[in-house]
């Protein structure tokens, strides 16, 4: 196990130990912060598949994050209003069950990624960045102007959705759930990176012409990765909406896309635990600087600038040294 492997274990255990210790000391706020880190890291894990493995610089992942959030609200809102989800063609009730909601959010995120990716991947480079940004913005304005799901005000869910066998209203139990999902996604991401598909994706990133010559269509491979990436980010969106018991168009805004990207880059692009370290550092900075100054984002901006200009490779890259073997 190399230095990065050790570091990964340290990050994973810290994210488990901090909420447990906070729970023991009766500090539910810190447990909630750790839950937020786990959920935002999950969104980053999704983006990292597109960005790190596939080299697709998507500035529109808020679209999938928000769609996941709205999938949760659309399914759960009818239950609290005692109405069916739909009456035609078959009568279907809403649901407060997390596994069902997660499945729906993952599917919705993946389908949206399929549509957006199929169009955006016709281009590359800077066009791709701008187009993903524009599609994200399109959904943002749609959510604002479409009155059926709350419009600008969003939707509140009064009681957190349930998970069989757990009391999700208890902060530490919900935190454990988010942590479990994050670890499962990390495991999946690791397996994906080492699979034949992951190697094909790496090839498509590094040299599309050569992969095409080997019989691998870069477009299909990249699109598949983009869909997986959108699906995971959609799942994170459903969890995030459940954490806040609220969704609003702000989840779809381009600042959210920027922040998810910041998690990934802060931690280290293409590093397995990069998004986890990045999200933890971001939330820590937000919490610490936010207590000092109302203008904490100014210092966050300066810190980010410093990291991009002088500490390439992000947190994991700086601590673990040695670039991952690619390019």
């Amino acid at each position, binding site marked *: 196990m190399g230095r990065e492997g050790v570091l990964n274990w340290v990050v994973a255990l810290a994210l488990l130990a901090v909420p447990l210790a906070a729970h023991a000391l009766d500090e539910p706020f810190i447990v909630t912060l750790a839950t937020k880190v786990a959920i935002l890291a999950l969104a980053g894990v999704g983006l990292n598949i597109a960005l790190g493995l596939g080299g697709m610089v998507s500035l529109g992942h808020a679209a999938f994050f928000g769609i996941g959030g709205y999938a949760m609200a659309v399914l759960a809102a009818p239950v609290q209003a005692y109405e069916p989800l739909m009456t035609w063609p078959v009568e279907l009730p809403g649901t407060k069950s997390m596994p069902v909601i997660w499945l729906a959010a993952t599917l919705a995120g993946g389908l949206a990624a399929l549509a957006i990716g199929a*169009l955006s991947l016709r281009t590359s480079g800077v066009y791709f960045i701008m187009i993903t940004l524009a599609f994200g913005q399109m959904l943002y304005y749609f959510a604002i102007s479409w009155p059926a799901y709350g419009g600008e005000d969003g939707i509140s869910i009064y009681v957190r959705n349930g998970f069989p066998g757990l009391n999700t209203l208890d902060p530490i139990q919900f935190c454990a759930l988010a942590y479990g999902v994050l670890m499962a996604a990390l495991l999946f991401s690791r397996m994906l990176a080492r699979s034949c598909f992951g190697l094909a994706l790496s090839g498509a990133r590094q040299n599309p012409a050569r992969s095409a010559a080997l019989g691998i269509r870069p477009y299909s491979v990249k699109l598949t990765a983009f869909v997986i990436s959108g699906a995971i980010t959609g799942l994170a969106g459903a969890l995030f909406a459940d954490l806040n018991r609220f969704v609003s168009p702000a989840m779809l805004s381009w600042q959210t896309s920027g922040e998810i990207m910041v998690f990934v880059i802060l931690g280290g692009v293409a590093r397995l635990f990069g998004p986890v370290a990045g999200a933890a550092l971001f939330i820590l900075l937000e919490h610490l600087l936010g207590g000092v100054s109302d203008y904490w984002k100014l210092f966050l901006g300066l810190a980010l600038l410093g990291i991009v200009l002088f500490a390439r490779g992000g947190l994991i890259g700086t601590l673990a040294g040695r670039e991952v073997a690619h390019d």
Partner: protein
Amino acid sequence: MSVMLLIEQALNGLQYGVMLFLMAAGLTLVFGVMGLINLAHGSLFMVGAFACAAVAGATGSFWLGLAASLAAAAAAGALVELTVIRRLYARDHLDQVLATFALILVFSEGTRWLFGSFPLYLDIPDALAGPVTLPGGIDYPLYRLVLIGIGLAIAGALFWLIGRTRLGIRIRAGEADREMIAALGVDISKLYTIVFALGAALAGLAGALVGALQSVQVGMGEPVLILAFVVIVIGGIGSIKGALVGAILVGLTDTLGRFLLPILFSTFMETSAATSVGAALASMLIYILMAGVLVVRPGGLYGRA
């Protein structure tokens, strides 16, 4: 629906379009010449608007404010280029996105620190206030008409600058082959600073001019930035002509879509439903336009790809 209302909306769309052009021109130049994607371009738009509002508020002269907006945005652009952007030319787009995203945070929070969270208001100068009557008996605000004029004049000046002057030759040469023109003795880093400051000044001017139509507040630049991205994706990155055509296309599509779609839907739906469906669809229209252009021409209308 009266024809007069339609003409008025078309003029509004044209005015919106030429202001978008001022933003898009700087972005497309910076991308074409330096290969840099600059998310902080919207912040320069905001800097221009705040400089104009502050100076106009202090001196009472809109024109001094306008001059201040040009100077402040160009100075901010040059400063940012010298301290940060310069280090990003050799980096990949990902680093550029993150660094310029960080710059947005710095600009937005810095402005909030200086000016507070409340929006500032900028009055239209007295000489340009009020409506004029156009041929055909349409009353139209003079200020908006002047904006169209200024935008088109600047577009003309920019075509002249790029196509007919020594600086323009160097800019085009820089786009084509930066090593070669450096070898020919052109100070390439000075050229980059000038191009960046020029783009910044155009964005600042747009901010000041539009600031008189809406409120001047932190975060006003980002929606415009994203529309400017849509414009240059439609027009083709690096092409000034594409930016002009794309900007006017986007301005007209957006304004006329918001006006016509609810009317169109109300022919076969109830009025309230037609209004909400029409508004929701109108807000997506320019992105649908962009997707359409990409399907037909992935490199944009005037792109080289």
